[in-house]
């Protein structure tokens, strides 16, 4: 098991290298001169030239990339922003935790409410409760977070004046963003839980357990749910990953100092070091999330655990495999 985890962490390295290289290439190919942008409109041509040399932009692209890489690997130095010259690492350190908190809490509450609803809907299949809840979930899945956020601000901040419309430090400030962002995870969790439970409940072994005389409650919660857990965990992991990357709109709306917003600005300003640093961070977090989900799999399902123990488990995570199959909540 440890071997598997280590191997996965090892596989992270080439992935991150490739990701960072791709992003670097993309942003680098952009029109727009970072030196110019850093100095502002009024800078003279000479000043821009000096700045370019200072930032190392005159060197070939590959050289620039490896220079950056060297700094990261050996000094943990992600460089500094072109314009503000603030250390990238510092900026990320200040902003990233907010995004993590936002995404984490949103998914957490989404799952907390969505999963029990899904279980109930599966048990009462085709009842009014089931149909009603699944329709609501479908709506929840369809309304984009930023639309919901705006509507909620309209209702709760502007009209009712109950909650603030920006910031992220107090509980009341966090309430709206988390609700807006958490609606989609909640809906998807509910649907995925329901469909996974339905598949499990149909299985023979559930019938065996009932034939033993076990109470329906235990059958559902203890046996069925445990078996249904894997796709649900995957969904949660994927949702978290998606939110980390995609929260920038919500952050913009609520003026939350998060990594998403930071990245948008960085990309607009062609601030290469910041873009790279940010993307690498996000990719790392997503990869670690996937790894954690896989470990959770092994804890739940003994067959998976056996696969991991034999070092032939391969280096691909279950979320990747499942993402590849395109499992969507029904």
């Amino acid at each position: 098991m440890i071997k598997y985890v280590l191997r996965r962490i090892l596989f992270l390295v080439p992935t991150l290298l490739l990701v960072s290289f791709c992003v670097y290439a993309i942003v680098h190919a952009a029109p727009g001169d970072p030196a110019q942008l850093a100095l502002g409109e009024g800078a003279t041509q000479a000043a821009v030239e000096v700045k370019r040399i200072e930032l190392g932009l005159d060197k070939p692209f590959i050289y620039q990339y490896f220079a950056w890489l060297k700094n990261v690997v050996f000094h943990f130095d992600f460089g500094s922003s072109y314009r503000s010259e603030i250390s990238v690492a510092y900026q990320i350190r200040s902003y990233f935790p907010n995004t993590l908190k936002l995404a984490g809490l949103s998914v957490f509450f989404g799952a907390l409410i969505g999963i029990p609803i899904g279980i109930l809907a599966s048990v009462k299949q085709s009842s009014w409760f089931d149909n009603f809840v699944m329709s609501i979930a479908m709506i929840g899945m369809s309304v984009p977070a930023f639309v919901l956020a705006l509507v909620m601000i309209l209702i709760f901040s502007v009209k009712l004046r109950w909650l603030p419309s920006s910031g992220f430090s107090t509980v009341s400030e966090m309430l709206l963003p988390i609700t807006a962002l958490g609606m989609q995870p909640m809906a998807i969790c509910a649907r995925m839980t329901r469909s996974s439970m339905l598949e499990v409940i149909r299985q023979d072994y559930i019938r065996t357990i009932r034939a033993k005389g076990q109470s329906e409650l235990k059958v559902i919660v203890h046996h069925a749910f445990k078996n249904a857990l894997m796709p649900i965990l995957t969904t949660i992991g994927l949702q978290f990953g998606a939110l980390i990357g995609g929260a920038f709109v919500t952050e913009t709306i609520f003026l939350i100092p998060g990594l998403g917003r930071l990245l948008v600005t960085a990309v607009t300003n062609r601030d290469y070091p910041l873009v790279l640093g940010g993307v690498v961070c996000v990719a790392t977090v997503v990869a670690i999330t996937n790894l954690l989900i896989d470990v959770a799999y092994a804890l739940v399902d003994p067959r998976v655990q056996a696969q991991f123990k034999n070092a032939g488990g391969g280096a691909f995570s279950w979320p990747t495999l499942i993402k590849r199959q395109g499992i969507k909540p029904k």
Partner: protein
Amino acid sequence: MESNRELMKIKNLSVSYKSSNGTVHAVRNLSLTIKEGETFGLVGETGAGKTTAALSILRILPEISTESLAGQIIFNGEDLLKKSRKEMRKIRGKDIAMIFQDPMTSLDPVNTIGSQIEEMIQLHTHLTKKEIRKAAEQMLETVGIRKERFSDYPYQFSGGMKQRVVIAMALSCNPKLIIADEPTTALDVTIQAQILELMRGLKEKYKTAMIMITHDLGVVADICDTVAIIYAGQIVEYGTVEEIFYSHQHPYTEGLFHSIPDIDVAQSKLKVIEGVLPDPTAFPSGCSFHPRCPYVKAKCSQIEPDNRNVGNNHFVKCFRGTSEEGCD
């Protein structure tokens, strides 16, 4: 050795399912009696209604699709169909246990086999944790599995071993009746023999009555005392093993026996029973078998035959051989 006391009496059991094509009458007016310690064979093709009848005894029919359940199942003097859910839960596993057909999917994949046996014991007894564990281990040994494998998971066992675990589970609380739904169908022939041997031994040791559901007449010959032939949701012939094997009367039973290839006779074609099972949403009028019966007469399509007693506790649901205008 069977005592003569009645253990369970099913009276006019009828079960129907909902389907997109209409109501499926899976079991129609089925009646049978099982004595203590008796091994009762229930023989029929797939879709004849055997499993449905079995599931109705334990009342674990799929709730969503079941439309109606009527009749009486008298067990220990009480009608099981009238019992509350809570009471049924006490009976399941303790008085009546069930072994299902496919061992590969009968066990919970995420729990150890030991814990699954323990669960059964824990549900119906008041033993301490230690005692439960010991009892579970003992059951494993009884079915021929080393108790060291207590903490292994189902995926680590072969089909035959899994079925042994299921049998251990079923017997762990010493039930009075075991319903075995085609327990060996999904296994190799050699394993089949082992499992049957095991079941026979356990049956004698624990004096359990058993309903053996199967489509394999060989299994019936091996282990059953009494046999009922089920067709289209009804019992068409019923009697002791000797009676059914040597003096069967119903044309369907005759067809079943004739379709078994004789190893001593050179045969170029297998004998079959012409036709197919009737559509369970629209049964033929009169005798359900009449469209396929080689002895069919006019009366057969008009009136449903009663259960005739042809002696030696042998019942047949057919007009053949009666003095009424009918079949020869």
